[in-house]
């Protein structure tokens, strides 16, 4: 069965303290791995798509990378406005599966 596991469940950082979020997956026939940001009470907001191992994408303070078994979302010098839940989702041939997310809090 396709599975997506995100770690840690929650992460507290000081402003400027860089870190990484992990998304581990087991899926047959990966069609794409997606990162989303979700603020409380809102729908997820698309960040990145990664298709193959070795691929990297960047946007402002965020950088997403992909291997054959996991993806990382690196956050460089985070700011309080980066506080949110970050969701990873995997597209397999037969379904789309989300992880439970990492809840990031950045303290000023």
């Amino acid at each position, binding site marked *: 069965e396709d599975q*997506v596991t995100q770690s840690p469940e929650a992460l507290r950082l000081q402003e400027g303290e860089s870190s990484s979020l992990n998304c581990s997956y087991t899926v047959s026939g990966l*069609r*794409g791995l*997606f990162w*989303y940001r979700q603020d409380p*009470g*809102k*729908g*997820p*907001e*698309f960040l990145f*798509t990664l*298709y193959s191992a070795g691929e990297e994408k960047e946007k402002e303070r965020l950088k997403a990378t992909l291997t054959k078994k996991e993806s990382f979302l690196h956050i460089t010098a985070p700011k309080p406005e980066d506080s949110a839940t970050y*969701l990873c*989702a995997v*597209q397999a*041939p037969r*379904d*789309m*599966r*989300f*992880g*439970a*997310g990492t*809840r990031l809090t950045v303290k000023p």
Partner: protein
Amino acid sequence: DAMVIQNPRYQVTQFGKPVTLSCSQTLNHNVMYWYQQKSSQAPKLLFHYYDKDFNNEADTPDNFQSRRPNTSFCFLDIRSPGLGDAAMYLCATSREDRGYEQYFGPGTRLTVT
């Protein structure tokens, strides 16, 4: 701006009283999805439409139905809501069925009393 719109944003219904949630999109995307998300959990796919083709997830309860009368609109019907159906319901769209990012609406928060 092109977007995904969900109405209402908040819905309160009584146990067993049918309820309909609506979603519209101005992105002209082929695919529309309905997800259920409970607190601190991953969004769970209920079903999706590729154009007019309906795809039901195997574990979606029969209590949940959907309609897509045209490209722009999609509805989620909950025939007899139970307390366990209280959740955020998210509508999403994507350009194609596989390998394309999804764009989400703001969600409808359903409360069952």
